[in-house]
C-alpha cells in the first residue's frame, strides 16, 4: 500500500470500485453540501469533490472535502491548476492531507472563460501532468518542486483524468501514458456515451500495457432529458454524445426521460464492466446526486466492500 487511502485498499483487494461526484455549493451553505453528501453516504467508495468546476466560484474543494469527511465520506480532492500557482497548490496539498484527505485528482481545469469570473487571470503555472508528478514526488521522495525536503510528506493516492473522446483521437492514449508515467495511480475518464470509441481507447491502453499500472474508472453521467443530451453533444467541448442516444431520449415522453436516462446509464455501466482493464466507475450525476443510489442498485453495485 502506498497510502492510507480507502480507495486504494478497495482497488488493491480487487473490488470493482465506485466513486461519485459531489459539487460544493455556490456559497457557504454547509447544510446543502451535507444534504448532497447524505445521498451518497454508504453507497460509494469515495466522493470526488469538484474544484470550482466550469470556472464557477464555489466553496473550496479542500473545505468541502473536510466537511464530507466529517460525515464519514472518503473524499477525493479535485485540484485544478487554473486558479493557483505551485506555491498555493503545494500548500493546499499539505493542508488537505492535514485535514485527512487521502486522494487527489489532478486536473488542469476548464478555461476561465466558461465561468462566472471571465475576467480572471488563468494561472496555469503547472499543467495536470506536472501536478501529478508534484504529488508523487511529495509522497515517494518527500520533496516539493525544486527538490527541497518537507516535514511530514503527504501520501496521496493520485488520480488524473482522461478524455478518450477529445482530439487528436489516436494520441489521447499517449497522453494517458504520460499521466501514468508522471505517477497517476488511478484515472477517471470523461463521461462515456460513445461505447465504440471508449472500447477503442481501452484497447489502445491495454496494448500499451497501461491497464496493468493504473486503475481506470469509466465516467458515467445519467442524462436527465433530451435537452441535456443535446446540450452536451453540441455545447460541451470534448463530449461525445452519439446521435442515436439523443434519438432514444427524444423518442420517450418528457416525463419518462429521466428514467430512460438512468436506464442508459445502467446499461453503460454494465457494458464498461465487461471491458478488460476497467477497475470501477465514476458517477457524475450533475445536480442529481439523489438518484445515485438507485442507479447503483440497478447496476448491482449498491453494496460496497468493507476494507
Amino acid at each position, binding site marked *: 500500500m502506498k497510502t492510507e487511502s480507502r480507495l486504494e485498499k478497495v482497488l488493491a483487494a480487487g473490488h470493482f470500485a465506485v466513486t461519485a461526484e459531489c459539487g460544493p455549493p455556490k456559497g457557504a451553505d454547509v447544510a446543502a453540501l451535507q444534504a448532497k453528501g447524505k445521498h451518497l453516504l454508504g453507497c460509494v467508495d469515495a466522493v470526488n469533490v469538484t474544484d470550482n468546476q466550469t470556472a464557477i466560484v464555489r466553496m473550496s474543494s479542500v473545505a468541502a472535502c473536510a466537511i464530507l469527511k466529517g460525515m464519514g465520506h472518503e473524499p477525493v480532492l479535485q485540484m485544478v491548476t487554473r486558479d493557483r500557482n505551485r506555491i498555493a497548490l503545494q500548500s493546499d496539498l499539505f493542508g488537505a492531507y492535514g485535514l485527512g484527505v487521502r486522494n487527489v485528482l489532478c486536473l*488542469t481545469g*476548464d478555461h476561465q472563460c466558461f465561468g462566472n469570473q471571465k475576467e480572471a487571470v488563468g494561472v496555469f503555472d503547472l499543467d495536470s501532468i506536472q501536478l501529478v508528478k508534484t504529488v508523487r514526488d511529495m509522497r515517494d521522495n518527500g520533496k516539493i518542486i525544486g527538490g527541497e525536503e518537507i516535514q511530514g510528506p503527504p501520501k496521496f493516492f493520485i488520480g488524473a483524468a482522461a478524455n478518450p473522446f477529445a482530439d487528436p483521437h489516436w494520441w489521447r492514449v499517449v*497522453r494517458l501514458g504520460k499521466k501514468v508515467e508522471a505517477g497517476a495511480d488511478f484515472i477517471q475518464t470523461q463521461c462515456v456515451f460513445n461505447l465504440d470509441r471508449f472500447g477503442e481507447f481501452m484497447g489502445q491502453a491495454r496494448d500499451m500495457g497501461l491497464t496493468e499500472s493504473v486503475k481506470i474508472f469509466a465516467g458515467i453521467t445519467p442524462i436527465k432529458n433530451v435537452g441535456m443530451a443535446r446540450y452536451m453533444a453540441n455545447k460541451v467541448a470534448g463530449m461525445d454524445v452519439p446521435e442515436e442516444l439523443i434519438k432514444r431520449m427524444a423518442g420517450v415522453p418528457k416525463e419518462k426521460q429521466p428514467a430512460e436516462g438512468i436506464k442508459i446509464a445502467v446499461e453503460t455501466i454494465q457494458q464498461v464492466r465487461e471491458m478488460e482493464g476497467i477497475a470501477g466507475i465514476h458517477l457524475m450525476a450533475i445536480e442529481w446526486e439523489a438518484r445515485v443510489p438507485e442507479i447503483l442498485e440497478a447496476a448491482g453495485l449498491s453494496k460496497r466492500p468493507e476494507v
Partner: protein
Amino acid sequence: MVVGERKPFDEIKKTLEGHKKVLVLGCGGCVTVCLTGGHDAVQVLSSQLRMARDNEGSPLEIIEKTVERQCDPEYVEEVAALIPEVDAVLSMACGAGVQFMAERYTTTPLYPALNTTFVGGSVKEGYYVERCQTCGECKLAYTGGICPIARCSKSLLNGPCGGSTKGKCEIDPEVPCGWQLIVDRLEALGQMDRYEEINMACDWRTNRDGGPRKMIREDFQR
C-alpha cells in the same frame, strides 16, 4: 513585431480633456507595419480629434509628427524642441515607446493612443495574429515550431486538454487547438517521440515573473 490596436476614440478624447495643444506622435516601427500607429494613423486620429473638439467648442491644436522608433532614445530626442510647445503628448507607439517618451520628458503628461496587444505577425494585410508570449525560454525546437505557450489557451506543455475538439480549442470553435497543430506537425516530421516526453514545470523567471527583464550585450557596454 509588436502589435497594437488603437484605443476607442472616446477614451482617447477623454484623456486629452483640458489640454489645448498636444503633440500626436507616431512611431515608424512595428505599429506602422500593423497600420495603427504610423504616419497615416497620426493624420487620421489628429483630424478626428480636431473635428470632435471643434464640435464641442473647445478646439485642440495639434502638432503631428512621426519618429523612426519611440523605443530608442536617439529618436525620442528628435522631438525635444517640440515638447515645450505642447501641454501633453499623445503617443501612438506601443507601451514601450510611450514609456521611453515618458522617461525622457518627465514634466509633460504622456498618454497612450494604443493598446499594446501582442507579439505576432500579419497573415495578410490588416490581419494580425499572436505567435509569441516572450516567455524567455524558447520551446519551439520541441514542439514542431508551434508555441504551446502562445497557441494553447492554457499554455499547457504536455499535450492537449480534454477540450480539444476537431482541431479547435474549447474556448472558441474559431480558435485552432495549439496542441492539435503541434501534434500534426510532429507527426509529419516523424518527431512524436518529443510529444511522449514529459515536459517539466516551466521556470517562469525568464518570463515576467522574474521582474522586468533586460538583455545586455556586454561587448557594447564599453
